[in-house]
């Protein structure tokens, strides 16, 4: 609508500019008809060329086509650009979510906030290929995020750890700006590390913890959870499923998850990384 109106007004505006220029420059002299027509046409063509040139600038294009500005903002975002470079399929899923969110009128940064549940799920899947340091960093970030949620919204904390029925809008509002920044940096780091892991078939510097030892450590931590939080809470951690309606108070389950991840990360690096991976994926 706006574009059509602008196109309709372009020629009259250029003709007015040409008329004013000719009038301004030659108002004290009388031009013959040929000269008047020639000058008017020269200024008209110059005005049209100037209008066309201005119309092609990025600032004007972004005003005329808001979708271009949104796409440029999305392209410039470090999370999206990383996904586009290293995981095009994930980038497509993210883009679809972002476009759907921006279509409702929210800004691009807000759309990224609302895409956090999707990004969390995709990043957790990617964390299978990361090095141990990055895996522990992701575990620390998940723990910090759960702590923030627990203090503000225990119900949401439970939904976040179980990955169920997350209200994107509500979820986007509870995290601090610092946590959001940390989350986006963590996502980028996980994708970078996973990219290297996939390319070189693992990370040569990492020494894998023994499976049986890891299983025994997992059991030790689970027993500690049972002692501290009760059998009902511990049951969630033994089969790694969290029912939609929590069997125990959500804040208890949330606290147990924070305890579990904290206890795991106190182990030596290789063991901690293996346990965190097992708990989160």
């Amino acid at each position, binding site marked *: 609508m706006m574009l059509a109106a602008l196109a*309709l007004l372009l020629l009259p505006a250029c*003709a*007015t500019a040409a008329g004013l220029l000719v009038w301004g420059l030659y*108002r004290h002299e*009388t*031009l013959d*008809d040929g000269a*008047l*027509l020639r000058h*008017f046409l020269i200024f008209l063509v110059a005005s049209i060329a100037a209008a066309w040139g201005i119309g092609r600038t990025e600032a004007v294009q972004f005003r005329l086509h808001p979708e271009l500005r949104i796409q440029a903002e999305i392209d410039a975002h470090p999370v999206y650009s990383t996904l586009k470079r290293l995981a095009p399929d994930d980038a497509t899923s993210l883009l679809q979510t972002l476009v759907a969110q921006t279509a409702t009128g929210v800004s691009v940064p807000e759309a990224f906030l609302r895409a956090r549940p999707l990004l969390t799920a995709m990043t957790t899947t990617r964390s299978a290929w990361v090095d141990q340091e990055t895996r522990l960093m992701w575990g620390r970030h998940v723990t910090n995020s759960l702590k923030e949620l627990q203090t503000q919204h225990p119900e949401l904390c439970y939904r976040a750890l179980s990955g169920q029925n997350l209200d994107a809008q509500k979820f986007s509002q509870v995290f601090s700006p610092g946590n959001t920044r940390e989350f986006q940096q963590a996502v980028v780091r996980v994708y970078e590390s996973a990219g290297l892991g996939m390319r070189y078939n693992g990370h040569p510097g990492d020494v894998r913890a023994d499976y049986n030892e890891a299983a025994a450590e997992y059991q030790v931590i689970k027993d500690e959870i049972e002692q501290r939080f009760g059998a009902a809470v511990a049951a969630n951690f033994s089969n790694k499923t969290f029912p939609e309606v929590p069997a125990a108070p959500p804040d208890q389950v949330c606290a147990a998850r924070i305890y579990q991840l904290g206890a795991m990360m106190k182990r030596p690096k290789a063991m901690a990384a293996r346990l965190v991976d097992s708990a989160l994926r």
Partner: protein
Amino acid sequence: MNESDEQLLSLAARGQKIVIYSILMNFIVGAMDRSHAVPAWVVQALFLGTAVLALLGVIRICSGLGKSQNYKLLMMVLAFFPLVNLVALVYLNIQATRNLRAAGYDVGLLGVKS
């Protein structure tokens, strides 16, 4: 009527013919545009050609009727405003017809009859 007046009226008569043809061209190109049967760039080129033709007609009528340079410029600018251009062209055409008839010319639908 002296020779100079005769030349001016002759100029107005030629301008009037051009204006009348440009009004007709306006309608024809408008119909072409709406029919979508002709490529858009052809329609744009025809619109531009019609506008230049109208300018030529406007200048000649204005000169023939002894109008000022500012008046000519105003009419040239109005020739690029949708709908207003038709009103301006018809207004100039009426003025030209009135003057030509007063001078004894036989003016028809397509201007002065030769």
